[in-house]
């Protein structure tokens, strides 16, 4: 990184590289955080609605994972304009994919909530401990 190298005569280059690694991948760090947070909620909560919230967070991480590498700074929409064919543009495919994934996520959440409503009607509880310990599962 020439921009930095000029300013930092005598500074600890290794530390700067690490900083660049942390800041440069900030989208990925958020993705990883969302994945782990979502999974943790799913595993640790017994309330069925809270579990679905965790599931949604987990799915949301995927949106970021796809969309953020698809963005190029200064890139425009991929439309060919005469005379400016070599425009820098962002790949539209990740965004389109994620539109589909969002729909899938919404459908999953809706179905999950509908199931929880039915579970509540049938068991009178939405705590997993109570639902699964209720009756003989064998």
């Amino acid at each position, binding site marked *: 990184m020439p921009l930095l190298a000029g300013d930092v005569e005598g500074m600890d280059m290794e530390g700067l590289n690490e900083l660049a690694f942390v800041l440069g991948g900030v989208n990925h760090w958020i993705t990883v955080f969302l994945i782990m947070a979502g999974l943790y909620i799913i595993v640790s909560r017994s309330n069925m609605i809270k579990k679905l919230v965790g599931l949604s967070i987990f799915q949301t991480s995927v949106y970021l994972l796809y969309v953020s590498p698809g963005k190029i700074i200064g890139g425009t929409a991929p439309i060919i304009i005469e005379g400016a064919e070599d425009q820098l543009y962002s790949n539209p495919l990740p965004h389109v994919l994620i539109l589909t994934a969002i729909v*899938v996520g919404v459908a999953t959440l809706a*179905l999950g909530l509908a199931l929880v409503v039915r579970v509540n009607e*049938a068991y009178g509880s939405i705590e997993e401990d109570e639902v699964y310990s209720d009756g003989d599962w064998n």
Partner: protein
Amino acid sequence: MLIDQFPAIVVAAPLVVAALCAIIRRETACWLLALVVAFLSFVGSATMLGQIQEYGEPLSYKMGGWAPPAGIELRVDLLSGYLLVLVSLIASAVLIYGRHSVRSEIKKGLRGLYYAMYLLCMCGLLGIVITGDAFNAFVFMEISSLSMYTLIALGKDRRALAASYQYLIMGTIGATMYVIGVGLLFTITGTLNLVDMADRLGPIMDTPAAIAGMAFVVVGLSLKIALFPLHLWLPNAYAFAPSAVTAFLAATATKVSIYLLMRFIYSVFGFGFAIEQTLIPEVIMVLSLVAIFAGSFSAIFQENVKRMLAYSSVAQIGYITLGIALANATGLTGSLVHIFNHAVMKGALFMLVGGIALQIGTVRLSDMAGVGKVMPLTMFGFVLGGFSMLGVPGTVGFVSKWYLAIGALENGWWWVVALLMLSSLLVLAYMGRVIEVAFFRERPEGAAALKEAPKSMVMTAWVFILACIYLGFDTSFTVGVAEQAVDVLMGGAQ
């Protein structure tokens, strides 16, 4: 030519008719529509498979006229053709079978919607198999899974709801893991077309991003497959779903995910990398063997016969994934043959149990005392199906175990062969328990008079039982196609 359009029709037709069924909602009309579509899909799949076998060329359909790799490609080669035939065949048969059991288990107003969901599920499963696009496979996977959760929740027992919820959570985690893996692979290759991805991954397969992507895909799909120890959703889902749904799911759903796993390991990541340079075969082998024993052991202690068969499915999935881990042509053939064979025999067994559930109202072992005397046709079929699970020569179970054992010997793993033999004894233990109760105990005093399940149910199940025996002698279809498909997996792709 019309056959060029078949790949699209086979998937699109169930989708369109599912929507139609959701509008019509009349039970008989929906059932007829579903049956016609499922049967047409079967004819279409079989025609495509015949065509591919004859000309040796995979069929490729450009969705919307966009050429791959930019457009979505529907691609039917020998392996996917084989799975297409399996899924559409089972779907048609279960529709014929399920008429009565759906009537007894599902509320009147919901039956039309049941058939809509069923077609949607079938469309998703066929789509996973037929698509040549990694993300498209995810979308189809979710179509099939969401409809599956709904179908399971339709079970009479309230535990079906809890089981469906459990499956929804785990299934979604699996699918999301898969799509994370695909996302990583897409970021480094810039393509979603499986063939193109395989080409571009070749030189960069040992980069961290590619390996992480591979790990996510394998773990995600293992959850969908219910590979031990990720199988926890399966026993409850199978046990409490309506009988027809269980027969359909047990025969197709996990098989399709296994197909996708094979595609990724062998075609996309490549034999040379995934098998030779990673721990994937070792890990899968250990898990498969544990699955075979843990699944069978758990099956022995089940009171609910459907749950017992479900645990047995966990074990049988272990046999199939064992073939993947053996990583030689014979083992992989055994694995592919067992996909078909297990679908046929487990489908038949679940169908017969569904008949018993319809007649006596429960599937608890203790309520089945003496059933063999009043429902001889059903229970005799159960015995033959049990023989097949056991791997008695002359049944399909023997054929697939034979190939697996030879495949293990080719690797010099004689102890795997010994374990395979030993595991058959466990099958004897749990299947024998049912047979003992059904034939050698008296009906309790004052029990309601029983007769055989409706003809349509028993006959369909028996067609499958007879297929178990026929395919045990004439292996030209299963083994023939499987051997050619293995060539596609091991040689053709790379």
